[in-house]
């Protein structure tokens, strides 16, 4: 295994726009909203940025291709600007670019921005679109809820769980996130809900109902990264560093080989294992203080908690119902409301997850502040359970 990224790169500034139905903003306006906060937080100006990475997934629905839209929005001074995309894991992908550039010495100070403007499509939900010319010929006619619902029917059958119990656990995932989102002024959805509301909601893709699915939101988030020595020159004392940064992409195993039973993510397990090695974590359930996982759907969060080693296989539903992942529980999950409530502007989500972990580590999370968190983990997933890409990041204070 290579040496790894642990403690080589510091996040010196972050910003995040308000997420929601931002009828008032183009994608470029959202970028500026997040970037302004980020630059102010870092205490750097745009002329100090050596290279930038832009994450956005369905650019044809808003600002168009290449890294140029970021350079245009911020008037970046003819520096390298790279547009990246890895489905819903694009945000963390931009972060990877910036972090590795700094670690490699190719940049002193690098910028990562993620943005998505989903509310000009005219859809409730993600737009129906081509998946690729050959893929369109044979892929099942699946929406995202449908593809992730597969996890639920397979999980329920494998673990012999009553569907009513599984649905209650899935409901608690969303109830908990809504509770957290109600304390987040930047979140798209801030209403509290109860289990009964979730269970009575209309079905979207059996067995996922309305409240098992995150909605679509507009938003942007940004991070500025640099080396520890430059961070100190900028006057920072509490340094939040990257402890691990891993990515895993499916290779056809899940979709074409009869060894995968449809109840977990191969990529989750692979990326998490490597991330723990990279960060020197032996017992994630004991050592991870808080995490943001990709709760595009409640079942995704449930299964991911097992894949990340925080719950035993087949037991996440029990931990969830016991409140283990609630804000007041042992390992709070989605303390900022998650994709479910903060929102899921696709390209921004990976960076938004890091934004909350960053604020928590610096004691700046206001009403949501957890007592003395040490290590925060983000999990960002793009694609479908049977074919996807997953990134896992772990951040913490430099001394820890």
């Amino acid at each position: 295994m290579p040496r790894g990224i642990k403690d080589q790169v510091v996040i010196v500034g972050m910003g995040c726009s308000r997420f929601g139905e931002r009828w008032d903003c183009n994608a470029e306006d959202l970028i500026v909203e997040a970037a302004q906060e980020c630059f102010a937080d870092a205490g750097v100006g745009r002329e100090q940025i050596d290279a930038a990475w832009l994450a956005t997934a369905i650019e044809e629905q808003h600002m168009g291709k290449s890294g140029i839209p970021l350079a245009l929005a911020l008037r970046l001074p003819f520096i390298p600007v790279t547009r990246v995309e890895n489905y819903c894991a694009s945000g963390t992908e931009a972060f990877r670019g910036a972090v590795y550039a700094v670690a490699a010495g190719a940049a002193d100070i690098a910028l990562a921005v993620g943005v998505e403007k989903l509310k000009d499509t005219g859809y409730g939900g993600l737009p129906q679109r081509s998946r690729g010319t050959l893929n369109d010929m044979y892929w099942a006619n699946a929406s995202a809820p449908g593809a992730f619902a597969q996890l639920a029917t397979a999980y329920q059958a494998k673990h012999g769980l009553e569907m009513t119990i599984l649905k209650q656990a899935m409901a608690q995932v969303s109830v908990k996130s809504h509770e957290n989102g109600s304390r987040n002024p930047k979140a798209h959805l801030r209403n509290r809900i109860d289990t009964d509301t979730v269970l009575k909601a209309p079905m979207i893709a059996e067995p996922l109902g309305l409240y098992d699915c995150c909605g679509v939101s507009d938003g942007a988030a940004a991070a500025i990264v640099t080396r520890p020595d430059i961070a100190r020159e900028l006057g920072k004392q509490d340094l939040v560093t990257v402890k691990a940064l891993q990515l895993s992409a499916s290779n056809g195993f899940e979709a074409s080989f009869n060894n995968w039973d449809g109840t977990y993510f191969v990529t989750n397990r692979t990326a998490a294992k490597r991330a723990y090695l990279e960060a020197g974590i032996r017992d994630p359930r004991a050592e991870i203080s808080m995490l943001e996982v990709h709760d595009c759907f409640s079942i995704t969060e449930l299964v991911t908690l097992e894949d990340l080693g925080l719950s035993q296989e087949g037991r996440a539903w029990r931990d969830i119902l016991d409140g283990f992942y609630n804000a007041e529980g042992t390992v709070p999950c989605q303390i900022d409301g998650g994709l479910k409530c903060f929102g899921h502007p696709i390209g921004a989500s990976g960076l938004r997850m890091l934004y909350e972990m960053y604020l928590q580590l610096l004691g700046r999370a206001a009403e949501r502040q957890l007592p003395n968190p040490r290590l925060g983990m983000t999990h960002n997933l793009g694609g479908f359970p049977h074919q996807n890409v997953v990134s896992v990041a772990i951040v913490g204070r430099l001394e820890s």
Partner: protein
Amino acid sequence: MVGIISFGGYVPRLRLERKAIVEANGWFNPALRAYAKGERSMANWDEDSLTMAVAAARDCPGVAELSSVFLASTTLPFADRQNAALMAGALNLDESLATLDVTGSQRCATSGLIQALCALAGGAGKTLFVAAEQRRTKAASPMELLVGDGAAALLLGGENLVAEFVGGHQIAVDFVDHYRGTQEAFDYSWEERWIRDEGYLRIVPRAIKALFERVEVPPSQISHFLLPCQFPKLAQQIAKMFGISEEAVADNLDGRVGDTGAAHSLLLLTHVLEQARPREYILVVGFGQGCDALLFRTTERLDGFSPRTGVSGYLERKRLESNYNRFLAFRGLVERDKGIRAEADIRTPLSTLYRNRRMATALVGGRCRQCGTPQLPKGHVCVNPQCGAVESQDEYCFADRGAHVQSWTADRLTYSPDPPTYFGMVVFEEGGRLMADFTDMDASSIRVGMPVNMSFRIKHFDELRRLPKYFWKAISQIGSESAGRKNQ
């Protein structure tokens, strides 16, 4: 001696209740109430004459190593793109093949069949003859109640026959009981009484008389008399003219299937062959601007032979449709607001389709020579993580392989002409898997572990470019659903 080696049939699973049609249209034409009982077969939104033809051909055992393939229908999806060649592709047949579309009248199947049999007698090799029909009818027409959708397949040859072709006679008469121009969607028909009296009753007997003069078989020896027509008792009337017994008149499947147009003579033939005994004479008639009369004699080999499911099996496998509006929607007979998701333009480049036709049309993937793993799609690198061999795969067809469902959902968000879309992970018992659309399923029977087979269907219809795109979907294994429900 040439004749039928084997046979198969197909009737779509959906059966539109005729009383639902009458309830919807009876206010306008009370005469329709005469047909309110029973059902008519209704192709699903993802079926057409081509998909039904493929289904019938797959029901027919022994379809391999053919010289010729014929496809007869007046409702083929393409007027100029050979449908028989497309069907041959779906059946994974060798490309060294003579293929022909036969069309133009309601007797095109019987006419084509006679020509195919003549070619065989002249030395042609084993031949697959398929007929299929999905007639388009106007709302509130009597035809809407009387027609049905379906297909039949015959494997023809010179040896190992279950039925020998004794002889045939054809007459050509431009009797225009109805017509449909090339650019038109619907038929135009004349008065029924005239069609019966001047058409059937005058023209059909001429063909039968000439046939009997040629073959020297006493009409009283006919065990099965097949005459598709909409007039009750007409077949009996004509039978009586010749001394064919009334018991010989075959059930024309009115009230269970309906008249499947150009396919009907052959559909009735395959249905009768399922029940016939050896050494019986079968007289088959086709009518449409003339008349074809064909005489077959079953052989000892018929005993113990059966198609994979057969018309009888497909008849039992039915789902009643009581919503006439769904029928109108599937046939595009009403201007509907399909919603924003239906606007998505999913274009298939014809070059991509051609290059990948083995997978798209025949469901052919790969099988690694090194580790034996079947995989879909076929790739350059074996998907087995313990293997990973490069350029090691031979073609491997998944179409006829049994499978079971590992996971599933009912997706109400994605666009579908018939929501919700059922789909899930289909795991083939001998290896390989596919996240596949489901079709024709009884929703209450869908469960993890259910056995499924693959069926050739319309995957998507490109409205902008007027192109049906085909692929394979999972259907419940025939006979398995009632078993599933019992187990629950």
